[in-house]
C-alpha cells in the first residue's frame, strides 16, 4: 500500500509497510496512479499512451523502471506481513500508571474532560498515601521484566495533593533497588500552585513535566478560568518560565488545547515559542459535539489549513535557526518505535492503567467513571484480566478501519478512549480524530521531506 500526496510544492509517496518515504517528480507521481504490482519488465503500452498526453514518453519509461526497482528492493508497494505479530505483547506486564492523586481542581476549564477534576462523578477526592503506595506496589509487582516504570501524577490538579505526591516519590525511590526497577515520574499541572519548592522537587524527580496553557492570553483565559471566572494566564506564565529555566529547558512540554474558538491555533503555538518555550504541544479538544467550543466536521477544512500553515511556519523558523518542537509533528522516520510497538499504540488497559483516589483501576484516565471498564480496585486487590485481554487484543489488525489505513503505523489504531466515547466501541475508529491525525502526519512527513530536499539541493529556500 502506498499513500501519495502533494504538499508545500512536494510530491510525497509513503510506502506504508516498509515505512519508506519517497520524493518523486510529477511524472512518477502521475504514473503511480496507473501502475501497481505485479510489474512487467517494460512499462505497458496502454500506460505509456495514457501518460503521453501529459508527459514525455521516454521519461515515463525511465520512471517505470525506477518504480519497479524500488518495488524489488521492498520499499515501494511492499507487502503487509505484520498481522502475524499481533499476538505479541498480549500478556504484557503493566509498566505505566496514571495516578489521579487529586480528583479536584482549582480551575474550571470549560472543556475539561475530567469535569473540573471530579470526572463527572460528583465527588471531589484526594488520593491517600496508602492508596498511592498500594498502586505503586501493584506496578512493581505486575511489571515483570520491565525495568523502566512510568508513573504520571495527574488529576484534577496534582499539586493540590502535593504532600502525597512527595511521599509517593520517596516511597517509589525507596523500593527501586529491591525490585531492580527505575521509576520515571512525570507530572501534569495547571501551574496555579507552583512555587520554588515544588519546582525544585519536580525538577529533581520528574523525568518530564507537562505544563498546561493554551497559548495567547485571550485564548487561554477564555476557557481556562479560575473558580471566580478570571483567567489564569498571568498567574502561570512566569512560573512556567522559571520552572523550565531551572530544568535547563529540557524534558518538558507546554501543552495546550485548541477549540473552535481558536482555529488559528498556529498563532498560539508561535506565541508560546515567542514566550521562550521550545517544547510545545497544542492539541484538539475532546468533547461532546454539541458544546460551543467543540470541533466538528465543519471545522476540519480550517484545521487542515492551519496545520499546513503551522508546518510552513516551522520550516520558516527552522531556516532562520529558530528551532522548536511541536509534539504532533515529531516524527523519526528512521529510528522510531519498532513495528511491534506500533501495532497497538498507547498500551492502555494492557501495559498502562489509571488509578483513582478510591483505588479503582481503569484502562486509562479517560475511561474513569465508565463502569464497564472498571478493571478492579487496588485496595480490594482485584484486577480483571479479561478487560486487560480485551485491550491487548485491540490492535491495528482488529480495528476494521485501521487495517486498511495508510496511517496505521503512525497512530497505531488511535485512542481507544476516544473510540469508545464517540462510537461506543474501542475497536471502531473515531473518524474526526483520524482525519486530524492523518493531516498532522502528512505535515510531519512533509517537514522531514522538505528538509531532506533542501539538503539534497532540490528545493530552494
Amino acid at each position: 500500500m502506498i499513500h501519495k500526496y502533494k504538499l508545500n510544492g512536494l510530491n510525497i509517496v509513503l510506502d506504508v509497510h516498509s515505512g519508506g518515504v519517497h520524493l518523486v517528480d510529477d511524472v512518477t507521481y502521475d504514473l503511480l496512479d496507473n501502475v501497481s504490482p505485479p510489474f512487467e519488465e517494460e512499462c505497458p503500452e496502454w500506460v505509456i499512451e495514457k501518460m503521453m498526453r501529459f508527459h514525455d514518453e521516454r521519461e515515463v519509461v525511465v520512471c517505470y523502471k525506477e518504480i519497479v526497482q524500488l518495488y524489488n528492493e521492498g520499499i515501494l508497494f511492499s507487502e503487509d506481513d505484520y498481522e502475524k505479530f499481533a499476538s505479541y505483547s498480549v500478556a504484557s506486564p503493566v509498566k505505566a500508571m496514571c495516578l489521579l492523586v487529586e480528583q479536584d481542581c482549582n480551575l474550571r476549564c470549560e472543556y475539561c474532560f475530567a469535569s473540573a477534576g471530579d470526572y463527572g462523578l460528583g465527588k471531589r477526592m484526594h488520593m491517600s498515601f496508602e492508596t498511592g503506595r498500594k498502586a505503586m506496589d501493584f506496578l512493581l509487582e505486575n511489571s515483570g521484566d520491565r525495568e523502566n516504570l512510568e508513573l504520571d501524577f495527574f488529576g484534577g490538579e496534582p499539586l493540590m495533593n502535593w504532600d502525597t505526591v512527595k511521599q509517593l516519590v520517596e516511597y517509589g525511590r525507596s523500593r527501586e533497588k529491591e525490585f531492580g526497577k527505575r521509576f520515571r515520574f512525570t507530572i501534569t499541572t495547571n501551574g496555579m500552585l507552583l512555587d520554588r519548592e515544588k519546582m525544585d522537587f519536580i525538577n529533581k524527580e520528574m523525568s518530564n513535566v507537562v505544563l498546561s496553557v493554551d497559548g495567547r492570553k485571550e485564548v487561554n483565559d477564555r476557557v481556562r478560568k479560575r473558580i471566580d471566572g478570571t483567567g489564569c494566564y498571568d498567574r502561570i506564565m512566569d512560573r512556567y518560565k522559571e520552572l523550565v529555566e531551572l530544568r535547563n529547558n529540557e524534558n518538558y512540554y507546554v501543552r495546550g488545547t485548541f477549540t473552535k474558538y481558536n482555529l488559528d491555533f498556529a498563532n498560539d503555538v508561535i506565541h508560546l515559542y515567542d514566550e521562550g518555550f521550545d517544547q510545545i504541544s497544542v492539541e484538539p479538544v475532546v468533547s461532546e459535539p454539541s458544546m460551543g467550543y467543540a470541533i466538528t466536521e465543519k471545522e476540519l477544512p480550517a484545521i487542515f489549513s492551519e496545520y499546513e500553515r503551522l508546518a510552513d511556519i516551522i520550516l520558516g523558523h527552522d531556516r532562520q535557526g529558530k528551532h522548536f518542537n511541536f509534539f504532533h509533528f515529531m516524527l523519526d522516520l528512521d529510528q522510531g518505535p519498532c513495528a511491534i510497538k506500533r501495532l497497538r499504540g498507547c498500551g492502555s488497559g494492557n501495559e498502562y492503567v489509571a488509578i483513582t483516589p478510591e483505588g479503582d483501576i481503569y484502562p486509562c484516565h479517560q475511561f474513569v467513571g465508565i463502569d464497564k471498564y472498571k478493571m478492579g480496585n487496588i485496595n480490594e486487590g482485584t484486577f480483571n484480566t479479561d478487560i486487560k485481554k480485551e485491550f491487548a487484543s485491540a490492535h491495528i489488525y482488529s480495528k476494521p478501519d485501521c487495517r486498511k489505513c495508510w496511517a496505521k503505523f503512525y497512530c497505531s489504531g488511535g485512542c481507544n478512549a476516544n473510540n469508545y466515547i464517540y462510537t461506543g466501541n474501542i475497536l471502531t475508529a473515531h473518524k474526526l480524530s483520524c482525519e486530524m491525525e492523518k493531516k498532522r502526519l502528512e505535515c510531519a512527513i512533509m517537514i522531514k521531506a522538505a528538509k531532506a530536499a533542501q539538503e539534497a539541493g532540490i528545493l530552494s529556500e
Partner: protein
Amino acid sequence: MKHIITINSANLKKTAAKGGCGKCQASCQSACKTSCTVANQKCEK
C-alpha cells in the same frame, strides 16, 4: 535514480523481527493525554 529520491532507511520490516521488548515509553505518558501519537516515541533498546 533520476525521478525518485528516498529520504529514509525504510526499515520498518527489520524492526519487527527484533522488536517488542517493551522498554520504550507508553506514548500517552509523554504529552498527549487526549490524542494518540506513537510514531514520535523513541526506541530505547
